[in-house]
Structure formats: C-alpha cells, structure tokens
C-alpha cells in the first residue's frame, strides 16, 4: 500500500482536567508543569489544565460538559453575560491550541480522561484522522500491563465535539476503572505509560521511522442503552447486572443478563450481538446511558513516514 508522508510534529499538547474530577490527567499535567516539561526531543510540549474551575471544585464541570463544547458552531458562538463557563473556556482553548481547522493549530492534542468503567486503556479518536490508530498499533506492542482497545468515533470533522479535535491530529486517552475524585497509583502509572509512549512515537516519527500500515481492529458505536427508569420520577430502577458489571468489551448476546432491579429481578438483553463498553460510567447516569454497545470492525490504515524537506 502507498505510504503517506506528513510534516514533522513540532507542537504537542497534553491536556488534563477536561473533566475536573478525572484525576490521573490532573496530576499528570500538574507534574509536567512542576517539572517544567516543555520539550521532548524535536518538539515542544504544552501541558494544559483544560477546566481549572472544575478541577478546583473537583467536579466534572461547572455549568456544562466542556468536552461537548468543541463543535465549530459552539466555538464561533458569540459570548454574552449568560454564556456558560465551559463555552467561554472552550473558546479560550481554541485560541490556545487551535484555532480548530487552521494552520496554527497544535500538531497533536492528547486529552487525558478516567472512567469508573472497567475499560483498561482505551484510545479514542475520530475516523477522519488515523494518527490515533497508528499510536494504538504502536502501543499494543509496547504496553502489556493492561488491555488496550481503540474506540473510533465515526463522524465527519464538522460534527466533532471533543477537545482533541482542536489539533491537526488528536487522541483521547481513557483509563479505568477509577472512581471520580480519586487518584489510584496503578491507573496513574498506566496513564503515564500511555503518554510516554505517545511522546516516544512522535519523536520516532519525527526522526524518520516508517510506521507500517495495515489492518487494525477497532470498536465503533452502534447504540447506547439507558437504565430502566420509573416513568414518573425518572429515577433508575435497576443497576447493571453483576454478570455484565466490569465486563467491558466482552461480547453481549441476546438473553444475557444486563440489569438487576432493586427488587431483585433480572432483565435480559434483546438485540444483536455487540460489545458493551463504558459499563456503569458515573457521569453517564445523567446522560441516560447505562452502557454503549459497539461493533468490532477492521479498518485499514496506510503506512506513515515524515516528510523530509
């Protein structure tokens, strides 16, 4: 297959605290700022706390979820007195790390997240950018301490809503399980391994390494399932079934248990064979998501090397 060449990456951003209570990224960025990490070999690093007010309050967000504020429309919306804090902050971040879609944008934006779900290490990026897929291929060989998977957001650039879409290339690194507001050393260490490998990859790319393309197995969102709810109060009436709890990415078949009601009854899955993930993520209760369901697909990526002038 043909080999694609791209210019070297000269500017990389590492972002933590996009959700203020996802602590691995917060402490990773703070440590990088404390050690004054601003360079790695041939490129510069900018370490950013994306949502400082939410970090200060140790909450996911103050007014609205920052990581849904990066669509083109929201980034160009006029700021008024009533504009939520996170919308203003998204526009500040767009000025610092973008502008999105322009020549001045960061070469790579790497956004750090945690989840209460048992996802292990999960890389997330959009289908219009296969740098994330190359990073995933690279990390699979280097990181053996935890399962690594890739979640592909299949939507066009114009609809991309999350922070990593500010850069020319972007990837989210999601590590779980960790309770929000808590920092676990093992999860922090896994996040650090993933960030270190990302930086090594960029350095290796800039130095002229050709990264072989090929087939990559990824998960892509099919649909989301909500909890059963009381029709009047909207309160949930069941929890994730013990046989599904902590089994992110294991195949779910029709007839498998998915919920157990608080009264003790089992509710079974009806539908196509799919892979559940983000099972029992704390922040998704309010988004009416008990778990996502994904298809496993194969995508083919070209070989990649740096464009030497």
């Amino acid at each position, binding site marked *: 297959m043909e080999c694609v060449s791209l210019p070297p990456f000269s500017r990389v951003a590492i972002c933590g605290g996009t959700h203020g209570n996802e602590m691995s990224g917060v*402490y*990773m960025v*703070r*440590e990088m700022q404390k*050690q004054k990490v601003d360079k790695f070999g041939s490129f510069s690093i900018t370490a950013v706390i994306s949502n400082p007010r939410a970090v200060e309050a*140790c909450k996911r967000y103050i007014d609205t979820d920052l990581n849904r504020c990066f669509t083109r429309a929201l980034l160009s919306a006029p700021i008024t007195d009533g504009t939520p804090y996170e919308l203003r902050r998204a526009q500040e971040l767009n000025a610092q790390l973008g502008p999105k879609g322009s020549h001045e944008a960061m070469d790579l934006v790497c956004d750090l997240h945690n989840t*209460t779900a048992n996802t292990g290490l999960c890389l997330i990026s959009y289908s219009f950018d296969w740098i994330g897929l190359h990073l995933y291929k690279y990390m699979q060989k280097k990181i053996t301490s935890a399962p690594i998977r890739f979640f592909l957001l299949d939507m066009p650039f114009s609809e991309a809503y999350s922070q990593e879409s500010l850069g020319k290339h972007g990837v989210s690194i999601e590590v779980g*399980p*960790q*309770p*929000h*507001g*808590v*920092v*676990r*050393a*093992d999860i*922090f*260490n896994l996040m650090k391994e993933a960030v270190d490998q990302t930086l090594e990859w960029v350095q290796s790319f800039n130095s002229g390494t050709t990264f072989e393309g090929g087939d990559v197995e990824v998960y892509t969102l099919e649909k989301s399932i909500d909890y059963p709810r009381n029709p009047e109060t909207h*309160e*949930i009436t069941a*929890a*994730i*079934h*013990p046989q599904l*709890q902590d089994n992110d990415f294991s195949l779910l078949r029709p007839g498998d248990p998915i919920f*157990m009601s*608080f*009264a003790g009854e089992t509710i079974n899955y009806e539908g196509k064979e799919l892979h559940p993930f983000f099972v*029992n993520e*704390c*922040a998704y*209760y309010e988004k009416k998501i008990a778990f996502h369901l994904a298809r496993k697909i194969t995508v083919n990526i070209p070989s990649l090397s740096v464009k030497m002038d």
Partner: protein
Amino acid sequence: MEGGVVHLPMLSRVAVCGGTHGNELSGVYLVRERLKTKKMVEEEDELVSVLTVLTNPRAVQQCRRYTETDLNRCFTQATLNHPILDRTPYEIIRSQELNLLLGPKGRPEAVDLICDLHNTTSNMGLCLIAYSDCDWICLHIFRYLQMQMPDIPVRYIHFDLPPKEAYSLESVGKHGFAIEIGPQPHGVVRSNTYTTMKSGVQHMLDWVRLFNSGTTFDGGSVEVYSMVKNVDYPRDRETHSITAAIHPQLQDHDFCLLRPNDPLFQTFSGDTLRYQGKEPLYPFFINECAYYEKGIALSLARRRCVMIPTIQMQRGLEHQEDEKEFMSEEEE
C-alpha cells in the same frame, strides 16, 4: 467477663437511614426501595417498629456528598443545640430536624437503634462503625452478621469518642452504628454492593426481631479494630495539592497489617515513601474519595479481642435504662 446473662431492654424502634451522603448510592436506593414497597415511612409489627429515612434529600437530589457541610459531622451535642440563624447551613438545620425525628440524642424518647448506610471508595468489605466497644447490642449484631454473611469480610471499627462528642447520625439513637460497604465509586450503584447492603440490613432486622422475641445470644470473643490515628497525603507546601498517591502495594489492602518501612505512597515523579510509624497497625479507609479534603489518606487501627456477654431481652427494663440516663445527666 463473668458468666451470667446480661438483660437489656427491648429494641422497640429501629431507624434505617440512607443518603446521609447524597452520592453514596447503595443506601439511597435501598431506602427508596423500602419506601416504595412499604407505603409508610414507619412500619410496625408486634416485634419492632422500623422507620426508614432519607436523611439528606437535597444532597441526594444533586448526587453530591453534601450541599454546604458534611451532615455526618453535625450531630455533636453542641451542633444540635446551636441556634438556627439566617445563614445556618442546610445540613445543620437538617441535623436538628433528624434529632427531633430520631432523638433527641441522650433522651429517653430517642429511637432504640439507628443503622446508617454508607459507601466508601476504599476496599473495606462490610464494616460496622460505632463509637463504643462495649455496646453489647452493636457487638452482637456484628457477630450475627459475620455468621450470616460468610462470603463477605465483615469487620467492626470502633471510634473512641464519648456520646457528647460523637458527631455522626447513629449517635442520636440509644444504640447505633453505620454500615459502610466498599469499594464503590461515589455516584455509582453496583449491583453486588447494593445486594450486600440489602442483605446486611435484613439480617440486622432479623436479629432485632429474634432479640425482641426473647432469644438468648451467647457471649464470646469478637475482634474489633480501634481507631488510632489518620495519615494525610504528602502535600505541596504552597499549593497544598497532594504530591503522591497511595502506593500500589497498599491500595486495596485495607485491614492488611502495615509494618514500619512498608511502602505507603508513590509520588507522581515515581518515588516510594514508606511508613515511618514504630508500631504495626491496620489501615482502613485507604484512598477514600471524600477524605482528600479532610486531610486523610488512610486511617490506622489496633486490632483487639473484646469479650461480649451472653445477652437476652427483658421487658420492663426500659424505665431502668431511662433512670440511668437521667441520673448521669444530673451527676453532670
């Protein structure tokens, strides 16, 4: 402990409380389930009357630990007597309402037993937490839960504080303990944790009914963990931000003996910090989310054996107990 049976009054009124911390969801959903299937907040039969209470509804509604101040620190006698002013935090107003409903603390009208339901992000299994190591009701319930729930680690934690200084909800009742179950992230409900909580509450109520029917519960020896001290995270002197996480070898090892020089923390730059204490102690509440702001990375306890007597309910003792309460107040 000499031989012979200790006779104790009937436990006529028991309160099951959840949502004292609004994001500790096992108790929230258990209380909601009990309120849903029983039409009244108070259900009564010939053996016992059980009150089911959602204690911090505002915090539950927002799925936060508290709205202004930690409700479960508002039950000292001083706070319960504090005058209510315009700016009085919601949780202090609420603690005084709960004191009227379930207390008043220290008075004969108080409920006989309060069981307050909590979750923790720490790997503590099921713990009964109480202020006394000689409250035979609490200790017998503990023993009964251990026997009825052999698949779950069940432990008793003792905080040594006199009643007036006792600051949490269960101190309002004549007897009381918290049931603490973890690990569970705050704001999340795990099915297995919920089922354990439900089972624990049911066994507790079964014991109360057995006790009130006149069953004799044999004495013996129980193991309790008595709180000694708290250990904070290492912090940056200027920002006060923590500079290390609980070490991977300590994380999730609640109640495993911590010896001098064992790893305690791992700094974010990768260094290991070790336990400097001279006495080996038992850690618990390791990496509890809500304790970062209280300056607690973990708590440390001594493990002791306590002898508990054989007990049996005897009617007519309630008034004797009341007299004892009055007398001790007069003496003060």
